[in-house]
């Protein structure tokens, strides 16, 4: 079981701010696609149409930014929390 925290900006595209994934996932990418099966609008705003993490979106596993730990290939484990947040950057 993996918990995904969805940012407020994407709440309109999710059923709730906190989504619990029951499917087994080994990586951040697998977890995001499992999330996308339920909330495609969230996945579409986290990954572009190439399947690449958008440059100003961060995905944390626990407190670690997945961008620095293998990106979409970063490992996740049962019971962890994935948090999606907009980066501090902005225009």
């Amino acid at each position, binding site marked *: 079981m993996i918990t995904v925290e969805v940012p407020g900006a994407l709440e309109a595209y999710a059923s709730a701010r906190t989504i619990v994934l029951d499917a087994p996932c080994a990586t951040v990418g697998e977890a995001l696609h499992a999330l996308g099966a339920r909330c495609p609008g969230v996945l579409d705003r986290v990954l*572009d149409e190439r399947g690449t993490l958008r440059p100003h979106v961060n995905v944390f596993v626990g407190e670690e930014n997945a961008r620095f730990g293998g990106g979409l290939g970063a490992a996740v484990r049962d019971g962890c929390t994935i948090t999606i947040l907009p980066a501090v950057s902005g225009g």
Partner: protein
Amino acid sequence: MAARATASAAAAAAVRPAPDGDVLVLVGTTKGAFLLWSDAERRSWRVDGPHFKGHSVYSLAYDGRGGRQRIFAGTRSFHWGSVLRTSDDFGRSWSAPDRQNVRFPEGAGLALTQIWQIAPGPASTPDVLYCGVEPAALFESRDAGETWSVVQGLLDHEHRTRWQPGGGGLGLHTIVLDPTDPRRMLIAISSGGVYRTDDGGKSWRARNAGVRAEFMPNKYPEFGQCVHKVVHHPARPGRLFLQNHWGLYRSDDWGDTWHDVANGVPSDFGFAMQMHPHDPDTVYIVPIESDEFRCVPEAKLRVYRTRDAGASWHPLADGLPQHDAYETVLRDALAADALEPAGVYFGTRSGKLYASADEGERWSEVANGLPSITCVKTAVVRS
């Protein structure tokens, strides 16, 4: 279009169009879109917005074909990407597509950055629209904007890998349709230049002969020019006017050849260009001093107009600031309405919107303090 989001309270109170026609000016900014309403006199304006607060809006369009009254907006979140949204009630509500509705096909290796242009198709095909995007590509809809697909002939063009991004990115920002032949279309890319199709988008030929590329060793290459805007009049579609990154040109043969018409302008650098709605000989531009100092020459805010198809250009400055005006008008931030006399409008990067109800003779400031203005479009709306 999966859902519709309710807009602000201000939007909910939007003016309804009058039976004899209201003028709607659509203003895109780096922080949202604004809808400005006036009656045919165009003396006072009501500002409605911002819509899409915090999102940049580089493209807007009104489509009154096929019984619709639909506004299109290309919105971009700095974080969450770009999407094309629509309103059928003048901004009271907007579509909120679950998934990005303008998207590159799998395998293209490209991801949408921004929607630069939305162009309703010919009147004879009211469900056809086009949009130009960054990275440079053309998309087509055949169901009034519900679904979009990339125009493969341009996506696969052999020149693609040698196009270079301009200051605003590698954008396809201009779409010029032929009202007499739906198979012909001309597009412009910064920096790729002008391309034309005569077979409905299957094949595209560079059409830049005579257009200068100041930033290239070969000043007149086949392609690679940084074209900023191209306009024409539907009554004389084969005659085109082009504002280049240095250079002001006219073509009388659908872009096969171009010749210089920078006659009497203080600078031939600029971004914006607008055709007069009724007179094929009248065009408006806003010259900019240089590409290094992207402000109007002499800090005087002046629109220039030709009434003889580029043989001469004359300044229009009555009501515009003539000192300390360090202003820039971007490529899509100059527009005209279809009334008689025509109204002309432009917005600046400093967030000022100016309007003229008499074809540019006299100007007044309609708004000041808007976010940086990226595009201005108009419609005359009848209920």
